[in-house]
Structures are given as structure tokens and as C-alpha cells.
């Protein structure tokens, strides 16, 4: 490894250090506040490192990693996401029964896993990243181990994730047997020489789809989603919904682009079917939900379906669309889960829709933020979610993917119904509801509040002037 490669890996080394720093801090009996602040500063330094690294790119670290503009974008998203999740975690865990400190070790570890996925261009790094991500997630999901839901969710995730990892390994093995390479580029070269697909390759991809579908909670591998979303602590749910999916999606995209998956009609058809099924089933299952966390789980199934539509074209327009969509989607979900965190009480998460009745008349600002977030999920103009959807529709239509695009449009109409239900609950006549009466730490409560407002402003800002980031996304994607 030469100096250039070492420098280029700096953000990732910093990220790995973060967990160790937290362990040391715990050893020296630091307070929760200190750990939180240091963690936040570390994430800021990672972002700073990403900015510093940018002129060096693209850098390949053979054989495992490739750091290019694409990786930078996804890593940036992941780190920003985790910084916000970390902020939410303080007020959530401060008043829970469990010691909150070890939580941060796990959080940063799984972030590392997710970030490694964004730069991996080899099956080995792919698998290692995924495992670092999942293993920390098992513990994170079951972190409040005295609560039944949490343990159930953790177990469910553990069993299913372990099985999907097995599938992934099997798929990789088959592809390796067929092509004799585990590097994405090597596989692509072999396939180009071979002209046409072998059965083994297709079967291998098909089996890998199971694992990826599981991680992204795509239909028909979505069965864990609602229970895990419901059982996990709210910040962890936010983490699963955003950071972990961004990482997996990044590696999926990198693999797809490297081996030109769109040249294999069978594979693309499989993905198209999964996308269509996710959009339809996710939206339909969300219709009757009155539990907000479950509702967001089903809606995120649908949203990942939309994202797969952007994956289908397999070109740069699709990448652009999906990066923008992921950006909008993460901001939206983070603000939604932020609201849930703010409204959760010590004993119970704010997951019942009744908690939100009349919210607008009591906490107008929070209700507005949530409204903006829900409208963005629904893809209504003036919000980033609309531009994202619009972008995907454009990318799909350009490649004449009429059927998935039409399904996308029709299912988003179905989706409107449940988003509107939450919104109209917030604007309905108020109920006497026990809200968070006193806060244990006004500083973090207020900074979460401010963060939420800023997120909402960004959502609207991106909805009206998407140009501010589109240009940057485009230039970054050319660095490869």
C-alpha cells in the first residue's frame, strides 16, 4: 500500500478509530455527554477527511477497495446519516434503563461496515463489510434487552440475516466457480470474454439477490422489516432504515455497473419483478397500519422498490437518480424518526398514531417538520422527495421501462392514503396525550429540535432548488 492509497483510506481508518476511541473513553469512565460530543466530533472529522481526500481520487486499493466519487457520495451520506442518528440517540438512551455508552461502539462499528460496502469492489470486502454491519446490528436491535419486542426483533434479525449471509456466500462461490475471480472487474472481464451467460452465473446472481433483497427488505424477503422496525430502539430503526440500506445499495450498484447487469435480461427481469412486488406489497401493507414505526417499515419497503427502478437502467442517469433519491429519502426518514424520538416517553415509544392526534396545535413546529417529511415520502412537490421520484421516473422512462414506472406512479397514489392519514391525525382536534414532560438534558433536546427544523428546511430547499446538489452529484460521479 503506497502513501496515496493510505491517504485515500483516511476517512475509513478514522471511522474505525472512532469505535476504539469510544472504548477508551468508556474505560476512563467518561460521561454519556462526553462520549456523545466526541462521537459527533469524530463524525465531523470523517466528513472533513472526505472533503480532503476528494482531490486525490480516484484511488484503487487492490484488490479490495476502490475509492472514487461514487464511494465518496455514498460514504458522505452514510456519515451524515449516522451523525444525526447519534444526536437522536442521546435524548433517547439517556432516559432508558440500559447503559447507553456501549451503544456508540456498536453504532460506529456498523457504520464502518456500511461505509466499507460503499468502497468495496471485491467479494471479500463486500462480505466483510456486510458482516461488520449485520453483527453490530444484532446487538443494536436488541439493545434494550429487558424489553420483549427488542429481544424478539434482535433474534429475528439474527436468524434471518445469518441465513441470508449463507445465501450470499453460496452465490459468491458459484460466481467464483464460473468466472474464477472475486473482484468485480475480474468477473466483468471474464464475462466479456465468455460472450453470454452461463447457467451457473445466473444461478449465483439469483442466490445473491436473496441476500441483498433481505438486507434491503425487498418483497418477498421483507418479512422481518416491520417487526424489527417496531422492536428496535427508535434511533436504531432510523439507522437500519437509512445507513444500512445506503451501504448495501451502494455495493449493489457498484457490482451492477461493473458487470453490466443490464445486459442480462433474466437478471434484470428478476430485479424488475422484485421492484414491482415491493412497490405494490409495501404500499398495500402500510395502508391499514396504525403503528407509525410499522407504517414507516412498510413504506420503506416501497421506497426501496422505487430505488430498484432507478437501478434497472444500469446507467449513470440511474446512479444520479438513486443518489439523489437516497439523499432525499434519508433526510426524510431521519426527520420522521427524529420526531418519533422527540415524542417518545420513557416507557413507551411514540409509535401509536393516537400520539400524533392534534400534534399541530400543541407542537406546531414538530408537526410541520413531520408533515414536510411525510409529504416528501409521498413525493409531493416542494419537497426533496418529489424531485427524487421525478428523477427516477425520468431515468426509467429514458430506458423505456414503462411498466415499472407506471407501477411506481400508481402505487404512490396508494401510498398517499396512509401518509395523509398521519397528516390529518396531526391536524385533527387534539387529544389529551402524555407527551415528554420534562427533558433530562435541555441542551440535547434543543439541539435535536434544531436539527429537525434544519432537516425540514433542507427538504424544502432541495425540493425547490435541487440544482444546488445535482451539479455536485454529477461532477462527483464523473470521478471514477
Amino acid at each position, binding site marked *: 500500500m503506497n502513501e496515496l492509497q493510505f491517504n485515500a483510506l483516511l476517512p475509513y481508518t478514522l471511522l474505525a478509530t472512532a469505535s476504539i476511541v469510544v472504548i477508551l473513553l468508556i474505560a476512563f469512565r467518561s460521561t454519556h455527554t462526553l462520549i456523545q460530543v466526541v462521537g459527533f466530533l469524530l463524525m465531523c472529522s470523517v466528513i472533513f477527511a472526505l472533503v480532503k481526500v476528494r482531490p486525490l481520487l480516484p484511488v484503487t486499493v487492490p484488490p479490495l477497495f476502490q475509492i472514487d466519487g461514487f464511494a465518496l457520495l455514498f460514504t458522505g451520506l452514510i456519515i451524515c446519516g449516522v451523525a444525526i442518528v447519534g444526536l437522536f440517540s442521546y435524548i433517547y438512551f439517556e432516559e432508558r434503563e440500559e447503559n447507553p455508552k456501549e451503544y456508540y461502539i456498536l453504532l460506529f462499528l456498523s457504520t464502518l461496515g456500511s461505509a466499507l460496502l460503499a468502497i468495496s469492489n471485491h467479494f471479500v470486502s463486500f462480505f466483510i463489510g456486510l458482516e461488520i454491519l449485520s453483527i453490530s446490528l444484532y446487538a443494536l436491535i436488541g439493545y434494550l434487552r429487558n424489553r420483549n419486542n427488542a429481544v424478539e426483533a434482535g433474534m429475528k434479525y439474527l436468524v434471518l440475516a445469518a441465513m441470508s449471509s449463507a445465501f450470499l456466500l453460496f452465490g459468491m462461490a458459484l460466481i467464483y466457480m464460473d468466472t474464477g475471480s472475486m473482484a468485480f472487474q475480474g468477473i466483468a472481464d471474464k464475462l466479456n470474454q465468455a460472450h453470454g451467460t452461463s447457467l451457473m452465473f445466473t444461478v449465483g446472481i439469483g442466490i445473491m439477490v436473496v441476500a441483498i433483497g433481505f438486507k434491503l427488505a425487498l418483497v418477498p424477503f421483507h418479512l422481518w422489516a416491520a417487526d424489527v422496525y417496531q422492536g428496535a430502539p427508535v434511533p436504531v430503526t432510523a439507522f437500519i432504515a437509512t445507513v444500512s440500506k445506503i451501504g448495501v445499495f451502494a455495493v449493489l450498484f457498484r457490482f451492477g455497473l461493473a458487470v453490466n447487469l443490464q445486459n442480462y435480461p433474466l437478471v434484470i427481469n428478476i430485479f424488475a419483478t422484485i421492484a414491482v412486488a415491493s412497490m405494490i406489497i409495501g404500499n398495500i401493507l402500510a395502508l391499514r397500519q396504525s403503528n407509525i414505526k410499522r407504517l414507516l417499515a412498510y413504506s420503506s419497503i416501497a421506497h426501496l422498490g422505487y430505488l430498484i427502478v432507478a437501478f434497472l437502467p444500469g446507467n449513470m442517469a440511474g446512479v444520479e437518480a438513486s443518489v439523489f433519491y437516497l439523499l432525499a429519502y434519508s433526510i426524510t426518514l431521519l426527520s420522521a424518526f427524529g420526531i418519533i424520538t422527540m415524542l417518545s416517553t420513557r416507557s413507551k415509544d411514540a409509535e401509536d398514531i393516537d400520539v400524533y392526534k392534534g400534534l399541530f*396545535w400543541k407542537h406546531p413546529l414538530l408537526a410541520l417538520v413531520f408533515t414536510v417529511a411525510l*409529504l416528501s415520502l409521498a413525493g*409531493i*412537490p*416542494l419537497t426533496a422527495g*418529489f424531485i427524487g421520484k*421525478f428523477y427516477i*421516473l*425520468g431515468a426509467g*422512462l*429514458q430506458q423505456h421501462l414503462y411498466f415499472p*414506472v*407506471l407501477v411506481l*406512479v*400508481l402505487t*404512490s*397514489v396508494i401510498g*398517499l*392514503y396512509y401518509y*395523509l*392519514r398521519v397528516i*390529518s391525525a396531526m*391536524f*385533527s382536534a387534539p387529544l389529551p396525550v402524555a407527551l415528554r414532560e420534562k427533558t433530562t438534558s435541555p441542551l440535547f433536546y434543543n439541539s435535536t429540535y434544531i436539527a429537525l427544523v434544519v432537516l425540514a428546511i433542507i427538504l424544502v430547499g432541495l425540493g425547490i*432548488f*435541487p*440544482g444546488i446538489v*445535482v*451539479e455536485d452529484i*454529477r461532477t462527483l460521479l464523473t470521478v471514477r
Partner: protein
Amino acid sequence: MILVTIITILMVAGLIAWLVSRWNVGLAKWIALVAMVIDFLIVCSLWSQYGVGKITGTGSSTWFIDYKTKWIPDFGIGFHLAMDGLSLVLLMLTFFLGILSVLCSWREITDRVGFYFFNLLWTIAGISGVFVAMDLFLFYFFWEVMLIPMFFLIGIWGGERRRYASYKFFIFTQAGGLLMLLSILSLYIIHGQQTGHYSYDYFNLAETRLEPTTAKWIMMGFLIAFAVKLPMVPFHNWLPDAHGEAPTAGSLILAGLLLKTGAYGILRFVLPLFPNAAAEIAWWAILFGVIGIIYGAMLAFAQTDLKRLIAYTSVSHMGFILVGIFSFREIAMQGVVMQMLTHGISTGALFVLAGMIKERLHTRDIDQMGGLWTSMPAMGGAALVFTMASLGLPALGNFIAEFLTLLGAFPAAPKLTILATLGLVFSALYSLRMFQKVFLGNRLTNTKTMDMSPREILIMASLTIAIVLLGLYPQPVINMVKTVANDLAVSHGV
């Protein structure tokens, strides 16, 4: 620039009204009113500037104002507003009804006043944006901006079944809107691939060459969106619920303005962008228009809920618009524009009356009304005027509109037009039944009812003057839209 100002005034005033209402509710109302009046005056001055006798020639000079700047250059999206006669006429209607909608909410809305006026002003801002946007992305943007506040207006301040009504309204229009978005995107991509220049600009997209089948599919996306808004049978289902449950000002805006955006969309986008495809489906569109006229009238006759009754008359009247537009005759187009104005005024007035009655009797059920004339002669008189307008009595605006429409449509589709004429007979049936049940006959309630207050008299008087004026001297409007109507007819070779 003046067009941007018009929209900005509304949006800013909406925000200020919301903020101010924390401290002073009365001030919020005044801010809303002043914003509407300022915009109305601006549009009036525009009218006098570009009005009668000042339009010469055709082609590019049909556009009085053209304002263009960059918005999202990466996607080829511009901020392009332009105004021709059609837009000007509709803007005039928008702000006229806008002032009235603020006035008629003056007493009706008592809680969350600031937020109410915020939504009201933003809906109107969205509507005025729709009437002047010449970039298809921007158009879609405004199309949605008028939708969300309206959803809140119905959902928060509506009647008993407001939640159901607001969902239905939103989902119906949004479904149409998304199909339109798909069409806009397809058109954008096809145009980009043909010319290498990606743009959402109306004037650029109008030059796109389309295969007949492609054109047909793309047009259907637009048409469905507009048909839902118009509404055309069988997409009219949301309308009675939304109109019935909305607060008075909401019904006024829905009937007076939102439905017109559908008609405007067909005139502005469907016909010029897809002339051949539109001509192909013309017969069907007229057929559905006629079905709407008759079916709407029949349903109106059967209603017992006053607001739903009026809502169904809208379905019937909007049928004439469809018949007029798809006959592609200049005279019918003029009739259509007249119909848009007069229906906005007359139906809007009926909704305001229904609101006033509901404020006094706390019911919308016409079986529980009756004999109201004795206690409220002034309101009865006003109601009589608009009932007559609705059934198309000569000397009132609606007569001119429907007469011109039918006159123009007859050569294009004689048999269907004859059927459409039946609508005039039916309208007499339901209108007279409504008036008879509410104002004549025996008095059924003992509730003490006050006749109209000065504020209400002001509202009804201005509406009455407008409808009579349009009935007696429609020429300024017809002149104003002459070139537009002519262009539309000419482009279809008639």
C-alpha cells in the same frame, strides 16, 4: 415580472397572516383581504393596459407578458410565466372570487384563523400560478401547490365527513396529476432525443414531432389529469364530497376556480400540444361531456343536501365545457371561456348562499328548509338571480356561455349537441326545485333567521353585478380571448 409579483404577494401575505394571527386574529383577515385586493387591482390595471382594441395581429403578440428566468438548469427547467388573453381573464376571475372567499370566511372561521388564511392564500397562489406557468414542470409544481392547502382547507375546517372528503379529493387529483407528470416527462425525453435540447418549456415542447400512437398515450395522461379536475364523468366522484364538506370559501374556490384549471389545462396543453390526437378522440370527449350534462343534472335533481345538489350542477355545467372545447369551433371556444367565468360566478354565489343558510339553520338538508323567503327576502332575491343564472335565463351570463357553446358545437356534432341542449331543460328542473324547496312553501323551522348582513350584501351584490354585466355585455371578454380562441380553432383546421 408583474406575474411573479402577483404570486409572491399572495404567498408572503399568507405567511405573514399565519404569523400575525398569534397576536392579532383580526389583522390576519385584513392582511389576506388586502393582498387579494392588491392583486385584483394589478390584474385590473393589466386588463386596461391590454384590453379592448389594443390587440393587433396574431402569433407571438398574443402573449402580453412573457417572463423567463432560470430555475433548475441541470434539468432544463425554467421559471417561465406568460400571460395571454385567456390567462388574463382567468386571473381576473381568480382574484375576484379570491376577495369574496376571504370575505365569506370572515365570520365563518373562528378557530386557527391564521392557518386558514395561509391555506386560502396559498391555494389561490397555486391557482394563479397554474394560469400563467409556461414551463411544464413549473405548471405541475403549481398544480400541486394549489392541491395541498386545499386538502387542509377541507380536512380541517370542513363538515362532518371532512376527512373522507379530503382524502378522496387529494387521491383523485393526485392520481391524475401523477399520470400527467409521466406524460410531461415522456414528452420532455422525446423532445430531448429529437433535438438534443432538453427543456420543459411549453413553446419548445410544442414543436415536438410525435408518432400518432405515442401522441395518443401522452395526451391521455394530460387529459385524465384535467378530466379529473374538470370533472368529466366518470371521474367526477370526488366532487360532491369535496364540495359538500368544504367550508364555504373552500366550495367557492373549488367550484369557481379549481374546476377551471381543468378546463384551462385542456385548452392550453391538450389541444395545442396534441392537435391530431385530440381531434381523434373529439367525438368521445363530446359524448362524455353530454353524458356529464345529463347525468349531473339527474343526480342534482335527486339530492337533498343543498351543497351536494349545487356540486352536481357543476358536473352538469362542466359538461358544456367539454362539448365546447372538442368541437374546435372558435365560437364554441369563446362560449367555453364565458362558461368558465359565469359558472365560477353563479355556482360560487350559490355555494356562498348555501354557506349563509347553513350558518343560520345549521343544516344542509333542503327537506328541513322551506319558506325562508318570508324571513330573508333579500337573500331570497339574490338566490333567485343565481338560480335563474344557473338555469340559463337570458340576460344573465350563463345564457350567453351555453348558447355560444351549443351554437359552435352544432356543426361539429349535431346529434350530440341536440342531446346536450336537453341539459338546459334539466337545469330548469333542478334549479327550480331547489329554489322552491328552500325559499318557498311553508316554513318548516322556527329558528330565528336574520337576513343578510352588510358584508353579505356586499358579496352578493358584487356577484350579481358581475353576472348581469357578463350577460348584457360579454364583448370585452370575447375580445380578450378572440385570438386565443381563433388560434385553437385554426390549429384544428376549422
